[in-house]
Every structure is written in C-alpha cells, then in structure tokens.
C-alpha cells in the first residue's frame, strides 16, 4: 500500500485519510468488545465506569462477577472451596451448566449442519444438478426468515412431535439455522475446486468414497471449517429458539444472559463475554498459525 512518488497531493491526502478511516472502522468494530473487559471487573452491579474505576482504585474492581459465574446456582456456594465445592460448582452452577449445554448443542448442531450442508453443496455444485436455483432458495431460507417466526413455528411443530424440550430438538433447530452458512461457504469453495482432481483420483483407481475423503475433503476443508465456524457461532449466540423450545435444564449461555432481564442483569454477562473473547482470540490465532504452517508445508510463498 505504498504511495508512488508521482502521487498528487490530493491522492496523498486521500491515501492517509483512507488509512485513518480504516483504523477508525476497526476501532469501531473492536471498541465495544474492549470496553467489556474492564467493566467485567466492576465491583458494582452496573454497566458503568464508577469513580473508583476511573481513578484506578483497586476497591473499584473485583472478581465478583467471575465468582458469580461459579457460585450462582450452586447448592452450597458458601462452603469451603475444596474438592466438594468445585464438584458442586461443576455440577450445579448455572453458568457452568449453560456453558456445557452451549458446547454440546453447538457441537452437535454444527456437526449435523456441516455434514448435511457439505453433502448438499457437493451435489449443488455438480453441473448436472437439476432445479438448482429453487433448491438453493429453499436451503438458505432459514437465514431469511425472522428468527421470532422460526422459533414459534418450531415450537408448535416440536410440541406436536415430542421434540420440544429435548436436546435433539434444539440441535435440529440450530442445525437448521446454521445450514445456510455452511451451504454458502462450501459452495463458494467448490466453485474454485479443480474437478480434474476428482477425475485424476478416479483414473488412479480410487473409488468415489476414497476420492471424497482423500482428495476432495482435504482440499475444501478451509471452506468447510469456515462454514462450520459460522454454524457454531450461530448456535452459540442464539437465544430466541432456545427460549421457545428448550427445557429448563437446557439453558445455553446466551439464554442464561437473557434470564431475569425484568429484574436485573449483572456484569456477570460481561465476564462471560470476556472469557469468550479470550477463547476466540486464542482460537482464531491458532487457526491463523496453522494456516501459515500449512502454507509453508505446501510451499506457497506468502503474498
């Protein structure tokens, strides 16, 4: 992005303005995430920077909300923090239960969405696929229906079929919501896929299934993974469907955040967010490192 020497003053001004604008937009994107982190250490149950926080008075800060994540919902939160206390927290703490549920539901719905979505994308990207457009429209329709409608519709349907209040029900619902993302990303990856590779594999004697697992899958994996990530995030941040179809022991993290909003929402949600942000930075950074490693392995010189 270096400026050439012949750039006119106007172009120079614009160039730097452009960089400043981009920096501001990144700030805009990240500011609400950054602001969450100090606030999660607030000693008060409000989303406000108190005087003490601003003067860096240690008493203005506390681990109170992180502690609450562990203790809330426990049978015996005030006991000595020994093995039994941690077991109690692990089994009963509402947030821990919510985290477990979120992960279980997220993982399974991602699995369902990714497997079915990838298969379908493979079919959709074949030139001989009949009725591609209408089918595509149906498959990505869950993305375009307002979630509240989906949730209510699902509720009635699940109640009639006995899926309501079951993990299977939520997993299916979240899988449905995640599928459009998988379809879109995997189809986009397949557009650039060199189909002579499949033919090459067949000519070398590989059966269609071997071809799929040994040749197609490794190559479209980046698209599949990014689709799966989208599906997982969709499930992980989804509250309305859970509100309608989940049973009481199937509360997820976002659902837990929305609980009790009539009475009180506490900075506990900010500490959850902080933890999630740190995990996702670690995750995304790992993915990037892996990508660089595999690039090195493939001998692609980074651009």
């Amino acid at each position, binding site marked *: 992005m270096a400026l050439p020497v012949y750039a006119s003053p106007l172009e120079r001004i614009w160039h730097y303005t452009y960089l400043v604008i981009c920096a501001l937009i990144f700030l805009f994107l990240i500011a609400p995430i950054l602001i969450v982190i100090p606030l999660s250490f607030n000693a*008060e149950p*409000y989303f406000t920077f108190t005087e003490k926080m601003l003067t860096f008075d240690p008493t203005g800060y506390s681990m109170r909300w992180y502690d609450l994540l562990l203790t809330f919902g426990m049978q015996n939160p005030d006991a000595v923090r020994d093995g039994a206390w941690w077991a109690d927290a692990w089994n009963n703490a509402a947030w821990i239960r919510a985290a477990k549920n979120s992960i279980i539901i997220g993982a399974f719905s991602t699995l369902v969405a990714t497997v079915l979505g990838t298969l379908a994308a493979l079919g959709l990207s074949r030139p001989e696929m009949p009725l591609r457009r209408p089918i595509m429209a149906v498959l990505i329709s869950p993305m375009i229906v307002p979630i509240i409608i989906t949730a209510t519709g699902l509720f009635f349907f699940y*109640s009639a079929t006995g899926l309501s209040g079951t993990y299977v029900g939520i997993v299916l619902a979240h899988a449905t919501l995640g599928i459009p993302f998988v379809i879109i990303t995997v189809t986009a990856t397949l557009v650039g896929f060199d189909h002579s590779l499949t033919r090459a594999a067949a000519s070398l004697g590989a059966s269609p299934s071997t071809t799929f697992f040994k040749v197609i899958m490794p190559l479209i994996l980046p698209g599949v993974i990014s689709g799966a990530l989208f599906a997982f995030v969709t499930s992980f941040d989804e509250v309305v469907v859970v509100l309608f179809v989940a049973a009481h*022991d199937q509360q997820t993290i976002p659902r837990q955040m929305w609980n*009790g909003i009539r009475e009180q929402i506490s900075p506990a949600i900010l500490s959850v967010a902080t933890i999630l942000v740190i995990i996702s930075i670690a995750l995304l950074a790992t993915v990037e490192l892996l990508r660089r490693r595999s690039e090195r392995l493939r001998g692609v010189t980074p651009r």
Partner: protein
Amino acid sequence: EEISVMSWGGAYATSQIEAYHKPFTAQTGVSVINVDADNPAAPIKAQVEAGNVTIDVVDLEYADAVRMCDEGLLEPIDPAILPAGADGTPAADDFLPGAVAECFVATIVFSTLYAFDESKFPENPPTTIADFFDTAKYPGKRGMRKGAKVNLEMALMADGVPAGEVYALLETPEGVDRAFAKLDTIKNDMIWWEAGAQPPQLLADGEVVMTTGYNGRFFAAAVAEGKPFKQVFDGQVYEYDGYAIPKGAPNMERAKEFIVFASQTQQLADQAKWIAYGPARKSSGPLVGLYQDGKTEMGPFMPTAAANLTNALPSSYEFWVDRDAELNERFNAWLAQ
C-alpha cells in the same frame, strides 16, 4: 419426584426459590425446578395450545392469569384448598381483595412507581406523581416503560385525577386524550425502557434523574447496593403476581400442593425477606421482618404498607384486557409521531 415452576428469573426467582422451593422440598421431598422465562404467559399459552405442557406451576401477572383462565388455558383452583391465615382467618378473607381468582392465587403485590436520584435533588425532593411530570421544577431526563399500561394511569393521576376515577375516565375517549396530552408534556425528556433491569441502570448511569420502574428493583439498588435512589409511592400502580396451574400440567396434584404450601402466611412473609414485594395476605403483613442483610426493616418499602397506599391505584385487569391492543396501538402511533 419433581415439579417445575416457571417464573421470571433474576432476583424475583431467587426470592421464590428461597422462600418457597427450598422449604417445600425440605418438607415433602419433592424437588422443585425453577424455569426462567421472559414472560411466562407466552410459553404457557403455546404449551397448552400445542398440548405439550411441561410446566406444573406458573408465575403470572394478574391480568394475564385472568385472561388465560377465561380462555381455558389454566386449571381452576378451588379457593377452599387454600390454607387459613396463621391467625385462623379463612383464606377467602385473609387474602387481599381480588387476590384469589378462579385460576390464580396471588403471592405478591408489586408496584410500578417512580424513583429519583437523591443526589440530583438534595433540597426539596419530589414527593408526588405530579412532580414526575414537572420538568420545570425538577429538570432532567425521565424514564418510562415503552407501553401504554401504567403510563396512562400515572399521567391522569399526575393531572389531578383521583386514583378511584382513573379507569372510569380512561374508558372515555376524552380521558385517553387527556392522558396522552399529559404524556406529551414530557415526551421530549423521555427515555423509554423495555426491560425491568434498565431503570436502575439508567439512574445509576445518570442517564435519567427519575424513572418509573418496579419497586423491588429500586429497593435492591438502594439498600443492597447503597445507591441514592428514593422511591415515591405517590401515584404508584400496583398489581398482583402469583401462581396458576397450566391446563394439563403433568403433576397436577403436586402443583396444587405446592401452591397451597407457598400461599401460607409465613411463606408469603418470608419472600419479602428477599425482595421488596408485598405479600398478598393480610396476615403476612405483620410478619414481614428484616431484609436479608439483617438490618433493613422491610415494612416501609412494601407497596401495600398503609402509608404507601394514600394515593395508589390497583391496576385494573378488566380495563387492560379489553383495551390493551387498542391503547398500545395508539401509544405506538403516538411514540412514532
């Protein structure tokens, strides 16, 4: 064995767990599962209509309960099974007037009222509902719930209508116009809130100087967190909240047992230890003691305390059941203007 109770979550659900669920389990061995919902009415209606009821007991606002009862969504509860007061008064007399309905047993009285930030008005603090609407005397932003209910009543009371005549007046188009006209006077200073957690947050942030809200939440902010929030009971609008049983609840008998247990004088009084909502039984009133911090006397903070009832309005479910849609539409149209 277990039963599930659906309620509103947050501090309110906590108070129920402490005052009802735990003792009930201790006594009967039946564990009670607390299920949170934003407004339990919607999932219950859906569950009953879909024929897939998983909840045994549900905590509803009075108006919703009556309406759902009329629609056959709730199980009738025979008032005769309710226990007599600790002093022996029969249940029918011991409950506050209207607190027991065909399908509903009230447990608390909660109030929508306004509170202000004392630090903003050190001298001559506001004391009446009229002061809330007086931005000349008490400058600063106001907060109100985004909806017609309660706001129209408060507007009329602030406009000088006695509590007793509010609903009669609201039945007439002139009354509605008058209420909206009063609201007009502070429309430009208004921040509308949606969730009950918002009003104390707005006050704490200094975003508003006074706001309507639920009294229990103001109390928690003032007492538990030591915030300088003062509630003004003048012009409060109070209503019942309590238990009902969805039609086709899986553990009907246990559900009734639970309601009978919870509506005992002592249990109702105990709940006030955890949250500042008034018990729905007269006999519980004197038993209300100290807040869980062990030093704050709860009595004066109850919406039902005599001192607080001088200019108070019990919310009329009949009115809102009939006029809800119409007035909310008008309210939204008014907001959008």
